[in-house]
């Protein structure tokens, strides 16, 4: 806990970081005051992270909803810049993230690869942020004097439950396509991945995302997924690694307000895929009279 002091003076105590969640641009503890232990794979205690309550989730929904229209109306160009900025920030803190990932059990090589992939993934979706609209939008042939076109629109507020296998990448691969599509997001990280997620909060908070666009929670999956699925102000739910029971329950609850529900395998396949953006955008078609 202590190291030899500077200039031979008395030993000083380490100043350890309290990992806090990110809700509405603020770093907060759980309103419930609860915390969870995080242990290294060998069982060594690493520290505490927050255990988000259902109320924390609802607060995050309020923050995300408040930010939704502003972010949806931000130009695609600026969204791209901000996502790229997040990549820059993560690059600048790459060594910290490598250490964090190693502390929760990744090998040095695996940690290095995962951080690099996370940065590249942010750049990848930064690139798509001002291009997917052209690819997924269309001008449609119709046999009447109308100009008919389809454009994408963000769905609104998306809840995302990240897996634990790739503590950083599972989270980044979920967030990036959601926000690139103009949605705001509330994520849940569990277990050892929570440490990497809360560390990522500091990167995202300094990347020019408006407050509330990205909200990061950590806690227990079984406590919060049900709330995410039923909440009427959430427009889509994406999860990684849901078991059959959870996905059946979520699918049923999501029907309440016709949320989109995508349970994804946590195998890391398809991280780089523009169709991921399509998962949380809607296609709106307009008929516009032409000629006279």
């Amino acid at each position: 806990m202590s190291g030899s002091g500077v200039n031979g003076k008395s030993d000083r105590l380490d100043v350890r970081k309290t990992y806090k969640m990110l809700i509405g641009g603020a770093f907060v503890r759980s309103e419930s005051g609860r915390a969870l232990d995080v242990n290294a794979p060998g069982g060594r205690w690493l520290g505490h992270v927050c255990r988000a309550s259902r109320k924390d989730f609802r607060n995050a929904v309020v923050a995300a909803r408040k930010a939704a229209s502003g972010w949806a109306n931000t130009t695609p160009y600026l969204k791209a810049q901000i996502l790229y900025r997040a990549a820059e920030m993560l690059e600048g803190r790459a060594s910290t993230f490598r250490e964090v990932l190693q502390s929760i059990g990744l090998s040095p090589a695996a940690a290095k690869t995962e951080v690099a992939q996370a940065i590249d993934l942010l750049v990848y979706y930064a690139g798509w942020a001002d291009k997917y609209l052209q690819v997924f939008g269309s001008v449609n042939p119709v046999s009447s004097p109308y100009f008919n076109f389809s454009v994408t629109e963000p769905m609104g507020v998306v809840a995302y439950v990240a897996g634990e296998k790739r503590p950083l990448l599972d989270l980044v691969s979920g967030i990036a396509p959601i926000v690139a599509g103009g949605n705001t997001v509330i994520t849940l990280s569990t277990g050892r991945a929570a440490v990497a997620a809360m560390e990522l909060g500091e990167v995202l908070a300094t990347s020019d995302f408006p407050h509330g666009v990205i909200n990061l929670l950590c806690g227990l999956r079984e406590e919060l997924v049900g709330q995410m699925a039923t909440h009427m102000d959430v427009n889509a739910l994406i999860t990684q690694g849901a078991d059959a029971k959870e996905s059946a329950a979520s699918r049923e609850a999501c029907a309440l307000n016709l949320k989109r529900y995508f349970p994804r395998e946590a195998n890391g396949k398809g991280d780089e895929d523009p169709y991921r953006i399509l998962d949380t955008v809607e296609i709106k078609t307009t008929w516009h009279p032409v000629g006279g």
Partner: protein
Amino acid sequence: MSSSLAVSTKLNLQAHPVDEVGIRERVARLATRSIKKASKVEGLKLALSMVDLTTLEGADTPGKVRQLCTKAIHLHSGRKDLPMVAAVCVYPTMVRIAREALQGTPIQVAAVATAFPSGMNPLAVKLEDTRYAVAEGAHEIDMVISRGDFLRGDYGRVANEIEQVKEACGKAHLKVILETGELGTLDRVRLASDIAMQSGADFIKTSTGKIQPAATPEVVLVMLQAISDFYRKTGKKIGMKPAGGIANAKAALNLLIMVREVLGPAWLTPFLFRIGASKLPNDMLMQLEKERTGVYQGLDYFSND
């Protein structure tokens, strides 16, 4: 008509210094009360029945006012167990439209008058404003005090103005808006409350909704205490109307708690307590729907008027 300079002889102003720290502590303690489940449902229904549903925009149109009136009658489709709101609050030129739209319902029509929201017009104009609103059919008049006169120390003029507006109201109920956000201190809030009550106010009201801060819990508590003292002295029950900045259901329930604690259950009626709001009812409806369905709600599913 008496001269506007005549100082009211009835005015009996005693200093009631307000303990700001004490008020803040009491507010904080009352805010920790937790009202859940069935009590919450009853509390929210009561609060809804006390709402003065308000639209006071330069952009108000007859269509918008009619839409608001429809909301006042039918707060949420598919629910038969909800009360109607107490009143609809509009500008004088919209009174007739609101009266027509609310015909056959017990919902009152309140009009803001006396050069709302600033009050910066001559008394004659304010009185004419009031008479016009009453003639159009307003049941209630929400007047503003002249904050400039008050802050100058010309309490007599403020009192006199309220008396004359009260006279112009005839049978209509008079609510006196103190615009506490412009008064600065709780001491002045207390003084303005005393002046308004002694000059004939049926209700005292915190704010126009155009100035921030508006109905803070501190200000509401001070005004409730003033009402309580006035009742003890005179036996007259004056109503209270917080308005402006009451954002959510929890804040509304906290108001009910304060009224219950300071004035007692006799004041928990729309005849003596109102909440001025435009967006607040939807949050209360969301909470009520949550209690009914067990699921947290989104504004997409509530009418946006």
